[in-house]
C-alpha cells in the first residue's frame, strides 16, 4: 500500500530531502495507475491560470506559458479569476474538499498592480480557500519594491517575478506544481489509509487528476477577450 511513512530516508544528505521524498512518492503513485486513461491523465499538460489587466502582458504571458508546454487560461482581473475557479468573493472560505466544478488549475500567476482586486488581494483569497490554498501562486510586478515582495511571500506566494517575465522564468514554475501535487497526493493517501484497506489504484486522487474540461471553450485568441484559454500548440518545442 502507498504510504508516506513507508519510505526509508535517503542514504545521503540532501538540501531538500523533503522534496525528493515527495517526488519519489509522486512517481510511485503515478506508476501505480495502470489503466491507459490514468496514463493519459498523468501526461496531461499542467494548467496555468494567468491574471493580468494589461492585454499586452496577457498575450506575452500566454505565449511564454504555451511555449513552455503549459495549458493556459488568461483572465483580466482577480474577480474573473475567482469566478473561473468557482470561488465567490463573499464566501471564499466555503468550499468542498472534492470540487464539483470541473476546473483543474495547477498554478496561478498574477500581476500585482491591477485595478479593483490587486494580485495581493487575490493571493489572500486563494490562500483562505480550503480548495485552492495548495495551488502555487506566483506574483508578477514591474516594480522592484522589497516590502511588496516580502508581503506577498509572507502571505504564501510561492515566487515573485519581476516584469518583463522571461522564458527562463518559466522553468521555475514546474517545481512548485510538482511539490504541491505531491503534497495533495500525500494528504489523499493518508485519508485513504485512515478510512479503509481499499485498493490504492482506484481513482483515489480526484480533483488533481481530473482532466480539465471547462477551459476548452473555442474562443479565439484575439486580444479583446477577457477570458481566453488554449492548449499548447502541437509543435511547441516545450
Amino acid at each position, binding site marked *: 500500500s502507498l504510504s508516506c511513512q513507508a519510505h526509508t530516508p535517503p542514504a545521503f544528505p540532501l538540501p531538500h530531502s523533503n522534496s525528493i521524498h515527495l517526488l519519489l512518492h509522486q512517481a510511485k503513485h503515478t506508476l501505480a495507475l495502470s489503466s491507459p486513461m490514468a496514463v493519459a491523465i498523468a501526461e496531461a499538460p499542467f494548467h496555468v491560470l494567468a491574471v493580468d489587466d*494589461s492585454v499586452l502582458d496577457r498575450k506575452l504571458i500566454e505565449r511564454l506559458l504555451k511555449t513552455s508546454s503549459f495549458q493556459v487560461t488568461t483572465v483580466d482581473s482577480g474577480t474573473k479569476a475567482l469566478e473561473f475557479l468557482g470561488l465567490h468573493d463573499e464566501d471564499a472560505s466555503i468550499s468542498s474538499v472534492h470540487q464539483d466544478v470541473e476546473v483543474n488549475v495547477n498554478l496561478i500567476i498574477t500581476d500585482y498592480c491591477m485595478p479593483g482586486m490587486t494580485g495581493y488581494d487575490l493571493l489572500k483569497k486563494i490562500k483562505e480557500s480550503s480548495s485552492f490554498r495548495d495551488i502555487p501562486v506566483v506574483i508578477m510586478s514591474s516594480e522592484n519594491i522589497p516590502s511588496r515582495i516580502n508581503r506577498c511571500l509572507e502571505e504564501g506566494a510561492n515566487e515573485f517575478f519581476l516584469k518583463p517575465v522571461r*522564458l527562463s522564468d518559466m522553468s521555475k514554475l514546474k517545481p512548485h506544481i510538482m511539490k504541491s501535487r505531491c503534497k495533495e497526493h500525500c494528504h489523499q493517501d493518508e485519508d485513504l489509509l485512515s478510512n479503509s484497506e481499499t485498493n490504492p489504484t482506484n481513482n483515489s486522487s480526484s480533483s488533481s487528476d481530473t482532466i480539465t474540461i471547462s477551459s476548452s471553450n473555442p474562443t479565439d485568441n484575439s*486580444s479583446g477577450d477577457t477570458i481566453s484559454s488554449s492548449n499548447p500548440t502541437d509543435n511547441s518545442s516545450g
Partner: protein
Amino acid sequence: MEYANLRRQAASLKRSLFDQGYLDEQFCQVEDLQDEASPNFAEEVVSLFFKDSARLVTNIEQAMEKYPKDFNRWDAHMQQLRGSCFSIGASKMNNECTSFRNSCGEENAEGCRRTFQKVKREHAILRQKLESYFQLLRQAGPARTATRPGSM
C-alpha cells in the same frame, strides 16, 4: 536576390533601432517567442502595443484635462503606459514615461505637460520605425523569422 536584400535592410533597421536606444533586449525576447506555429507573433504584439498605448495616451490626455493637478491620477495612468513600454522593450519611450512620472512626483504640472509631449513624440517615432521594419520583413517573405541584430 531581392528577398535577401530586403532582409538585410530589415536587419540593418533593427540594428539601428537598438544602437539609437529605441529598443532594448526585451524586444529580442519577444521576437524569440516566435516560431513556426506563431510566425507573426512579434508583429502581433507590436501592433497590440500601439493599439493599447494609443488608448492609454488618450486616457492620460483626458485625465490631464479633466483633473488638473491630480498628479496621482496622472501618474497611475502613466504607470500603465510605462508597463507596456517595458513589456516590448520600447526603451526611449519608457524613459520619457519615467520623466513624466518624476514630474508628477514633484507636482510639476508644466514638467508633466512638457514630458507628455515627448512621450507622444517618441510614441509616434517608434510606431513609424517599427511599421517600416515589419513591412520590410513582410516583403522579404514569410520563410525566415526575424534574426537578431548582428547575426546574418
